[in-house]
């Protein structure tokens, strides 16, 4: 499953350039107008959010659009099933691949943040495994969408109705706690919020509070997503 190196160059550009442009555009532009936020500069605050969001987008795009292209358009999954592999192997491989690609996005953004002095403490290195976990959670959920999809349009619903609002309420651009309590509660039930809660203190240079809770939520999304994706994939491929 891990032989898709060919398309890497083009994909990396779009996966990385967009979030970085946004990071510096919003970070420095908006940051100049804003005082420090939660004790850090706005760009550092936003960098943590942007790292998680970009990781989420890469993971979701790869598992939904690229996954669907391989499964539905190119019938690559059918071909793989002629080998001594099962649908479970394919689902696992797709999730691992999308998470790895997402991790590359997250770690590059982190590298840039370090390079520009936005993050300086060695604590920030722990954001690397955190980014992988965020990628894993969103890849697993994205793959559920992939194996449930009847057509390409299906993904618009998930993106517009789930991902975009999640990005707004999960503390990416501003502290989530500023929102009305019900929205905070929703954010806390979703994985992006917990990713940001882990990465932000690390960027600031300290251990994240409630680390185990945040890790547990992300792991739960990854595990549940993996199992549901397998369930629906088996169903799809047994008919």
């Amino acid at each position, binding site marked *: 499953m891990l032989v898709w190196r060919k398309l890497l160059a083009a994909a990396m550009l779009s996966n990385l350039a967009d979030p970085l442009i946004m990071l510096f555009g919003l970070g420095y532009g908006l940051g100049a107008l804003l005082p420090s936020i939660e004790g850090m500069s706005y760009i550092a605050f936003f960098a943590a959010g942007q790292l998680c969001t970009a990781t989420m987008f890469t993971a979701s795009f790869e598992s939904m659009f690229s996954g669907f292209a391989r499964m539905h358009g190119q019938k690559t999954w059918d*071909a793989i099933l002629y*080998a*001594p592999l099962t649908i479970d192997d394919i689902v696992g491989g797709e999730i691992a691949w999308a998470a790895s690609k997402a991790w590359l996005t997250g770690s590059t953004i982190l590298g840039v943040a370090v390079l520009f002095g936005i993050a300086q403490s060695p604590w920030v290195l722990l954001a690397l495994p955190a980014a992988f976990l965020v990628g894993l959670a969103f890849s697993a959920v994205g793959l559920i969408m992939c194996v449930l999809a009847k057509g390409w349009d299906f993904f618009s619903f998930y993106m517009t109705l789930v991902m975009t609002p999640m990005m707004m309420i999960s503390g990416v651009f501003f502290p989530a706690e500023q929102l009305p309590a019900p929205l905070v509660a929703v954010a806390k039930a979703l994985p992006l919020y917990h990713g940001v809660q882990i990465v932000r203190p690390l960027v600031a240079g300290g251990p994240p509070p409630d680390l185990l809770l945040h890790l547990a939520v992300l792991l739960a999304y990854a595990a549940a997503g993996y199992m549901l994706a397998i369930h629906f994939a088996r169903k799809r491929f047994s008919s």
Partner: protein
Amino acid sequence: MSALSVRGLRKSYGATEVVSGLDLAVEPGECFGLLGPNGAGKTTTLRLCLGLIEPDAGAIELLGEPVPRRARQARARVGVVPQFDNLDPDFTVEENLLVFGRYFGFSKAEIQPRIASLLEFAGLTGREDSKIMALSGGMKRRLTLARALVNDPQLIFMDEPTTGLDPQARHLIWERLRRLTQEGKTLVLTTHFMEEAERLCHRLAIMDRGRVITQGTPRALIAEHIEPQVLEVHGPGYEAWMERAKGLAPRVERVGDTVYAYGEDVEPLLKTISGELGYLHRPASLEDVFLKLTGRDLRD
């Protein structure tokens, strides 16, 4: 021991039973044809034999392995040529073979030396670096066949291997398939082309509505089910001719504006053809058997 044995196989989708009590035995080294109209259950049968779907009832043994329980182990020694090519368009010809071999757990170093002979077999020598998009339909088909051989399988399933190919490409595929049987490989193929089945298959089974309705060698099936000579007559006055023919041939059928007369000897009938009637006199073929047994109604 059979290369593939199927007993009492059943599979339903919702209220429709697609495979209903199928029995088959394919011997090692033979080319076995599975014939049947659209919707007869051929593709479902192949998928069941590969362990890709679970049967509702029945037993399958593929190369000595019980399927679906040990389908993985069986698939390691089996090749598949699907009905629709699913080569990976992101890769070149050579990469498609390499990547596919990796799915079988072979290392790059193990596959690399085999690629030249696989490409030779597929008639694609020199096209290693071609993109899949740049290949013709026949080339893609041959590459799919070469891909199915990457694990040096003992048995190869082929779902309509020549559908959509021009005669040149089809003849080349036939030649390659004969080469495979000469090498001792077992072939199981589904096809709509009776000519293909007659030429390639040592034995074949005709399927309809999920079960085998007859099986045997192509010659035996023709001898068993149909009169050896056929006269097809069409053109103005064919209806009147049909009435005369009924007295002279044991079996006369009309399909649309063509009359089919079957018999041991159709010479007396030939003498009755006159005027503007067009005709074709030919030996009976597998297609006649197929149409007799499965009917002439369109299947969708």
